């Protein structure tokens, strides 16, 4: 132990300093917050060629959370597992007679309800794809249907006839007709905390909260969004709702009597769909999930809104107007439907299938019954314990970190200055070339190097100079160097056509730079009297 301690105490005086390029100024805001890193970690896959715009996307609540997409007269089911393998073909497809407008999975994921523009609502068995119930009562196209969060018997629907209906699915009968909206009902959601409460949004700019226990079938609360409401969702607490309409997403406090808490106006075009997403947050070491609102709009942006801090935390652009968005309950898949028949599915890496993995462990239990005894005849015997992880209380003796030296570093250490310059010129990293040149200047060897370069190497240098000499960042060093190089190697340049070509390029880029400088000076000449005048006031 004493020996180890002593080893640890010794140090060397000198350190190895690498040749580093000059630091660049850092932007004041970080390029990527942990959260945007999280949202970017969804590996995007395109599901193309779905003919028309994706009206509705819905995730099954039961693992592995397959999702259904409604486009034209078709509903397709996709498996998120196949997405990670790059397979984008649907696992099953259901055809309809009319355009499908809305989809909803039952809470156990066994049934799928779909509505179409003919006013018909059908309930399918997800596995067999057979229609089990046909609910017909709406006289105009149905625009949304929704299964309640826990209730398996009822279904909520709304349509262009401005009526919201509550269905008894088994009996194919309407339980309640909720009247009150004055325009198309386009969206709705069921409360996550109560099976009696739900909310619907309509093109009459209002969002109404309904309670089935109120017998006069009037809304208990009404908020005015100010624009035709495209989507409304309950936030997971059940006390807040978010509404989308026009260019804004608004957050309302239902318990506080329908007070607007915040309006998020960062979309440039109509927000078409919103859903609740979850992000991972780390604070003081422990990791937890936090809810976000994902909103998509016709401007092609998906925005992630932190309604705790009322801030847009991430924003992503897609090359098409976006129609629908959905986020899987296991937080590993998010899908976005566009108006031109493409689904952008994003899947995040993670532990695949915790359940099945566990099962495999149980099956494989027998094989681990006897630990293998290592004997000196195996090579592994001599390596035993090498990959052992240190226990918590162990005293760690760190090995000195090995410094990785680049080729030019090694050459500079050996004082092979010209070779270092040539090697770094070959590497095509501009920053490093400048750094090596600066190091050579401090060693007072740069001009010596230039005079020692042979024709090919001189060509490399001239090529580098012609590309970079006019960069403002490096021009103070490189313009001086260029001048010196041409002075010193004038004869060699005249004898070689290739070098003459480089010189021509160099001349051209300098002329270009001069032209820019001239025009900038002209602009400055125009502006400076104006500034002078405004400063006087």
């Amino acid at each position, binding site marked *: 132990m004493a020996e180890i301690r002593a080893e640890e105490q*010794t*140090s060397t005086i000198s350190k190895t*300093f690498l040749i580093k390029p000059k*630091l660049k100024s850092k932007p004041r805001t970080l390029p990527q917050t942990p959260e945007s890193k999280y949202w970017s970690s969804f590996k995007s896959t395109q599901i193309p060629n779905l003919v028309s715009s994706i009206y509705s996307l819905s995730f099954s609540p039961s693992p592995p959370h397959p999702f259904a997409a409604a486009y034209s007269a078709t509903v397709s089911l996709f498996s998120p597992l196949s997405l990670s393998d790059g397979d984008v073909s649907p696992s099953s497809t259901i055809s309809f007679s009319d355009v499908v407008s809305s989809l909803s999975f039952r809470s156990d994921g066994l049934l799928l309800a779909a509505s179409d523009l003919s006013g018909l609502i059908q309930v399918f068995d997800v596995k067999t794809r057979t229609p089990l119930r046909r609910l017909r009562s709406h006289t105009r196209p149905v625009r949304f249907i929704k299964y309640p969060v826990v209730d398996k018997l009822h279904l909520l629907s709304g349509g262009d006839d401005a009526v919201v209906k509550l269905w008894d699915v088994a009996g194919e009968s309407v339980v309640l007709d909720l009247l009150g909206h004055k325009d198309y009902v386009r969206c709705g959601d069921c409360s996550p905390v109560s099976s009696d409460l739900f909310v619907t949004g309509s093109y009459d700019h209002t969002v109404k909260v309904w309670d089935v226990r109120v017998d006069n079938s009037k809304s208990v609360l009404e908020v005015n969004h100010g624009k035709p409401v495209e989507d409304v969702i309950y936030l997971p607490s059940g006390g807040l709702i978010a509404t989308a309409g026009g260019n804004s997403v608004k957050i309302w406090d239902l318990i506080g009597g329908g007070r607007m808490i915040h309006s998020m106006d960062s979309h440039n075009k109509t927000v078409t769909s919103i859903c609740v997403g979850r992000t991972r947050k780390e604070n003081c070491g422990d990791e937890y999930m936090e809810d976000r609102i994902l909103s998509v709009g016709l401007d092609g942006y998906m925005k992630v809104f932190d309604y705790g801090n009322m801030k847009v935390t991430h924003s992503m652009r897609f090359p098409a107007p976006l129609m629908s968005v959905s986020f899987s309950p296991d937080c590993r898949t998010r899908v976005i439907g566009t108006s031109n028949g493409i689904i952008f599915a994003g899947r995040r890496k993670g532990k695949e299938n915790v359940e099945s993995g566990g099962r495999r462990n149980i099956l494989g239990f027998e094989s681990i019954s006897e630990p293998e005894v290592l004997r000196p005849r195996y090579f592994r015997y001599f390596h035993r314990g090498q990959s052992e992880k240190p226990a918590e209380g162990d005293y760690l003796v760190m090995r000195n970190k090995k410094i990785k030296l680049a080729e030019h570093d090694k050459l500079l250490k050996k004082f092979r200055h010209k070779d270092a310059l040539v090697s770094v010129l070959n590497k095509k990293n501009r920053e490093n070339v400048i750094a090596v040149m600066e190091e050579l200047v401090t060693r007072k060897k740069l001009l010596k190097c230039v005079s020692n370069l042979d024709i090919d190497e001189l060509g490399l240098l001239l090529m580098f100079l012609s590309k970079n000499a006019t960069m403002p960042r490096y021009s*103070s060093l490189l313009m001086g160097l260029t001048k010196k190089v041409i002075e010193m190697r004038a004869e060699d340049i005249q004898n070689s056509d290739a070098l003459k070509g480089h010189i021509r390029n160099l001349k051209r880029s300098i002329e270009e730079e001069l032209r820019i400088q001239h025009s900038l000076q002209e602009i400055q000449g125009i502006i400076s009297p104006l500034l002078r005048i405004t400063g006087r006031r």
Partner: protein
Amino acid sequence: MMMRGGRSMVSSPPAFSNDAKKLLVCTSNTVSVFSTATGLQITSLEGHTALVTSVVVVPPSSPAAKVLCYCWTASLDGTVRYWDFAVPELMKTIDIRVPIFSMVIPSFLDIPSEGKGKHQDLFAYVFTEDTKETQEKTKALRRQIRKCNLSKSRLVGRLILGETKKAEVLTVSPSGKFFGIRNKCRLHIWKVPDLGSEHAAVRKITLHHTKKITAIAFHPTQRIIAAGDVTGRILTWRGFGNIAFSGSNGVENQKLISIQEDKPGVRDNDDADSCSTWHWHSAEVNVLSFSSDGAYLYSGGKEGVLVVWQLDTGKKKFLPRIGSPLLYFIDSPDPTLSSISCADNQIHLLKMPSMGILKTISGIKAPCCYPEMYKGLDSGIAFDQTAGLAALRTENYCIQFYSLLDDRGISEVQVCERNHQPGDDATVIVTAVALSVDGSLMSTSEVKLAEEGIGGLVCLKFWQAGSQNKEFSLSTIVYEPHRDAGISAVTFHPSGNMVVSSSFGGDFKVWRCNNDIIQNDQMHQNFSWTCHSVGSYKKRPMTAAAFSADGTVLAVAAETLITLWNPYKNVLLAVLGETLTPIVNLSFLGKSDNLVAASCGSNPQLSVWSMSKLSLSWSYKLRIEAISSAVNSSSFAALALLPESSNETTFKGRDGVILLYNGTDPVPTAIWSVRKAKGGALGFLQVNPSSAEEIIIDGKTPEVLLAYMNGDHEYVVFDPYCKDAHEVNMSKKEGLSALELKGQGGQYGYESIYGELPEFNKKIPETPWVPSFPSERPWETIFSGSSHNLPPLTKLCSAFLESLLEKRTASVE
């Protein structure tokens, strides 16, 4: 008197104590004793009145005497002193009245151990300067080697072994049989006479070489001597003095044999068997030393590389990039420990076979030499007033933090990421260093010199201190802060979140600190500095800058004018003018509304300006080297260089004075004359309450101390308001020596593995197996021991029973 420090630790070779736990270092008039375990100073031996030139530790005569701590020291004051450095206590003083440049004591290396009866005299060989006989001799040969009888406290009369022009260092062989000096291209070697008599003939041989010899070393066991020369060659003579030192009539033999024998490499019929040459060093060899077993030779020189030569094969191993010329390599009695002294006032303790550095005893670094244009602006020393630290620029692109109160180096901050190679031209220069008032922030500026007009770069760097004291980390780099113009001054705002940098390019910039606290794994404060405003005055070069004590006024000197600004709004408030020559130093006087400015050049001037009247209060025509003003009072101190004409006569070599003024009063309240004022610095230090009990003058603690550092970075700290400038009593920190004692015993080699060997004793004590007398508790001991050693049961049984009976009776009583 006052507290002195910052002395050179490398003026003469240090010496290890016999147990290798202490290192004795000559520090000008004293010998400092450092602990090798902690690298901290334990005590110092004070008494010499001039530079101590040699320290010789008395080797132990027996292994038991290892703990004894006696040493001899020699000094230029002409005395040899004998100390017990454990206590520390002066035991004996021998005054030989001639300055001693070097001293060796070969004879106690073979003191007869049975010599109790007849006491032998102890002889030292000293290198002295003959001060008396100047008329008779040519002045050139005044340096003499003489013999000194330490037991009788006198020089051995008239015995002059040799004379040289220059003072050289005497080197003694580890066996104590020879000693030698180098003298230009020659080596002189003397054989120490066996008998301890005074006038025994001392025999001498001379070895010749063609180049100037710079270092010599004797082999510990064989007759081998190694010498290094100015060109970097190492010569090894084997079997030197075989002829001269063997027979009694050596002179005849030498003549006879030399004709016949073939002596490869040996010049001029020198008395040696062979001479071989190694060449690795590119510059002169300063350090030569054989390892204690004689298998390796250590050499080092100006390059700062310690080379280990295997003596038989000539194979080399290196300890590279020490960064400073090596001066001495000292082996300790512990074979795993040795020390190298470097020219930058550092002593590194090496762990030997691996040559890793265990500890560094860090003295103040010498001022570095800069090209002419970067000299003279500023001494480049910043003082941390609260912690009593000085921040100095060093040659290896570092800022060294040196504690003035503890007299030791605290830490170094690498400003430029470069390795310094001694002997290189300086191409990167740290031009300025500034510290914030609380010492937690630092700003440095550096210049990279251009190569024929291309590639020059000026950098301004901001540093922040970490949680560990004075472990600075870089927070912001600004490249070319004032385009390509050099920075003339960097100053911190009193609050610490603002810095002004003024440039010769005609503008100054105010930098502000954005202090974001990033909450990742731990609380981490991140300072980033951004430019807050730029100001210029008639495109004049800005030469100095200062903030007022409350931070509301910024004074920037535009050559001969002083411009006053509001630093927050960047508004020009007033212009004061004007002096005859450019101002190089500006300082506000404490909390008062006065400003002091120093200008240099042909018409140097020290001027005090009143802010309330916006006019000159008074001025002197003085050449000012440094100004420092106290934070809390209105007094300030100025270091003025005396005109060269008055130097010789009145001030006895003192070339500067420190003037202490009280505010606007043009009559200085105190004047001290000092030496080596050129390049000196002044700084007021605040006495913080925690250390106040350590610094006591006349029973009361001073409020403020003034530190003066001279051009060689030696410094004094004193109370400027104390009329007769009493000594600042520093009660030495007891903690250091206590720490030393606690450290585990310095066992090494065999002992470190198996523990201390018992003293081998031939007389085995004949103790009977069974205790013959009834002890108090015999039942505990009679069954102890291995079974084959136990006496027969019949004997034991009776003893056991008897013991039980004993117990009973004992308990009854």
